């Protein structure tokens, strides 16, 4: 019921988003027909292209066509390539998801391990080193970090390819770079949570029952820390989708971020509108998944909100 209720609530939210997206994108400066025709086009050429693209139709008519495009994908085509938007997005989506999911998983694992290490080695050199690295990870701009990694791992060490997406090796650097911020965030979060619960009675009870220290930490203490991490993971995943614009440009990866950048540059309205709408859908789905995961991890949250 919870899932159905949440999904039902998402429909009006998406409708509002669709109106805003359509309206704002239409207000972007720069006429798509002018950009497509190039700087030397005549007024007649531009008018013909506007007509061909359907830009002379009233805004309401175009909005209805935009909504119809959600159900009849062949109606929604890119201004620039003439190909269905659904096809353009479908070709790029797996790449973006691979990097975002890969980055999130690497970030979670590295963040959890380093967080545990920090909590267990408080005040030692390990703790200091990890703290410095996590602070650097949180504050370093992705763009700069990407170029730095290319310089180090591709140009100087020659271990990994600098740009492209034709082999699995091409995904290593982008995933590592996008994993940096979540890893740093999770690390700080896990450390703080572990330190908070380490002295709690339920851990002493577990220890007194003869449970090994490793199991106490990983199963009992870390599980509680993960509840907060899951909520953060949802936010991080959304941020990573948005950040794909930068990562994909630096590494020459053909994902949704690059598609969106190209579309903005050429005022390719249909691509921009459907891409942003899809990002909105992602955010709603991610939030829902985060809530469900939190409920699974923390039974207390399964109680009804009102008594």
């Amino acid at each position, binding site marked *: 019921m919870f899932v159905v209720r949440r999904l039902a609530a998402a429909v009006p939210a998406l409708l509002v988003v669709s109106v805003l997206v359509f309206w704002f994108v239409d207000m972007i400066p*720069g006429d798509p027909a002018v950009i497509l025709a190039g700087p030397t086009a005549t007024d007649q050429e531009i008018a013909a292209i506007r007509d061909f693209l359907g830009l002379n139709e009233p805004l309401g008519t175009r909005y209805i066509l935009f909504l119809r495009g959600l159900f009849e994908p062949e109606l929604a085509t890119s201004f620039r390539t003439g*190909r269905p938007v659904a096809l353009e997005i479908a070709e790029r989506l797996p790449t973006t998801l691979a990097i975002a999911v890969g980055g999130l998983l690497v970030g979670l694992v590295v963040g959890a391990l380093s967080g545990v290490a920090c909590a267990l080695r408080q005040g030692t050199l390990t703790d200091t080193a990890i703290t410095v690295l996590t602070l650097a990870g949180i504050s370093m701009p992705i763009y700069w970090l990407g170029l730095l990694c290319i310089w180090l791992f591709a140009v100087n060490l020659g271990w990994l390819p600098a740009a492209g997406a034709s082999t699995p090796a091409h995904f290593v650097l982008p995933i590592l770079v996008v994993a940096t911020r979540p890893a740093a965030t999770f690390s700080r979060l896990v450390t703080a949570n572990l330190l908070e619960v380490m002295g709690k009675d339920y851990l002493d009870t577990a220890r007194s029952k003869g449970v090994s220290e490793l199991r106490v930490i990983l199963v009992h203490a870390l599980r509680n820390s993960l509840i907060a991490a899951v909520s953060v993971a949802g936010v991080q995943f959304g941020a990573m989708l948005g950040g794909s614009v930068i990562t994909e440009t630096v590494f*020459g990866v053909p994902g949704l971020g690059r598609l969106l950048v190209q579309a903005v540059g050429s005022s390719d309205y249909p691509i921009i509108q459907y891409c942003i709408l899809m990002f909105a859908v992602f955010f709603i789905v991610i939030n829902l998944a985060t809530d469900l995961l939190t409920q699974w991890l923390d039974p207390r949250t399964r109680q009804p909100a009102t008594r």
Partner: protein
Amino acid sequence: MSMLPNQTLRRVTLVLMCLATPLAVAAQPSGELRVAVGIDPDTLDPLTNALPIGNAIDLLVLNGLYRLGPTNNIVPDLATEHFYSADGMVLTVKLVTGRHFSNGDPLNAEAVAASFNRLLDPATGSIFAGLYASLGKAVAVGEDTVEFHLSEPNGHALMLLANSAAMIVNVGAAQAMGAEYGRRPVGSGPYIVEDYIGGERISLVPNPSYDGPTPATLTRITFIVVPEDGSRMALLETGDVDIAERVPPEAIPAIQALDHADVRFLPSMFSINMELVLRGALTDARVRQALNISVDRDGIAKGVLGDLGTPSVGMVGPGTQDDLRRTFEPLPYDPARARALLAEAGYGPGQLSLTMTCPTGRYIKDVQVCQALQGLWQSIGINVQANIVDRGTWSGVVNTLPDARLDNMGMVGRATAGMDYTLYRLFYTGVGANRTGFSNARVDDLLRLGRATTDPGQQKEIYGEVQQIIWDEQPFVFLWYQKQAMGVGDAVKGFEVRPDETMLFQNVTVER
């Protein structure tokens, strides 16, 4: 005895065959070429492609009646001869016979006429329908002749036929494939598209059914799309690519220091100018002159552009149509004279305010040049506001009709092959890309005359005078011609780039 000549002939033939064998082997495609480009062409359909990278690929996959050579010179491709009717209203082009598209369809006069009529029909979404409108209608006459029934006399029709937009597509395949034709165009060139992954790479392989005179020289050409300059240069540094286009000024020393690659500097016909909106103070020739002579072009070219620009010596860039191009004495850098001219025109220090619109990342160091210009003009007492905007906004502003413009000038680069195409659309009263509001009766007369005449001598005289008037009238602040910097591996031989920034791979070999 009578057998002797025959025996000799047979021996000679045998020897020639033996000699020819290695030549034939050498003519087989060999080696792969990898090219890092900064932008995805989005489409390879000549109907909507306007990018040099799209042109470069189309030149390998398609044929035209004519094509532009390494210096933008017109060279025959499928055409064998052409002639105009007595009244100049019908252009007849004869073409080679026996050629085929890669799908086996015949490439005859009917196919050529269909391709042109698709280009000329605005209902197909052609972005060049207006430019080519003077070609009127294409009609096939037999197997080897196409007639263009022109809508107006046009002495520059061959230049239109040689541009990439006029390359011959297989209309039947284009109709059947729809927008996918833009990804895998069916042509008659030496290569076919093997793979097109949007935003990542396009690979070409030899066309197995190619039956023309310039077969493929490489087993594969892969274009890798890397928009970020630093990453693109890294690919060249690591040897992952053989050619990287658009080396930014700051990366030139690093590429030049490589032991396996170098930077090649090539002329570009991109003429970058500040196009003035001719109203208010800018209708005064003295103000326009003051703006022009207060620009330190050499300083900008060296200090800002890192030598990737050549100070302008005429509005028309090199390679536009060199046999009709004129150049002039460089404009002096004379801020004192500029101040005096402004005072003469009634504008003391701080009394003239102007706004300019500049793009971000459209041209090499465009933002920095705008900031430099702002400083130079402020130093002669003009209040200058620089509106530095994204490409979409910039495009909208500089394409606005002069009466509706809110700014006073915009930075625009012009790079269109052909003198008529370049000058008519920019300077004929009230047409096309004439966004300055420039109007000169003599120029209008000359441009009409120049378009109608087919005599090269007359054309040279006519366009020479037009260029002189424009240089004297200064409707633009003339800035620089862009210079291309290409990172090219030592293994690459026979690589050329046209002045319109289209890379040519027809004769490229790779010797690793």
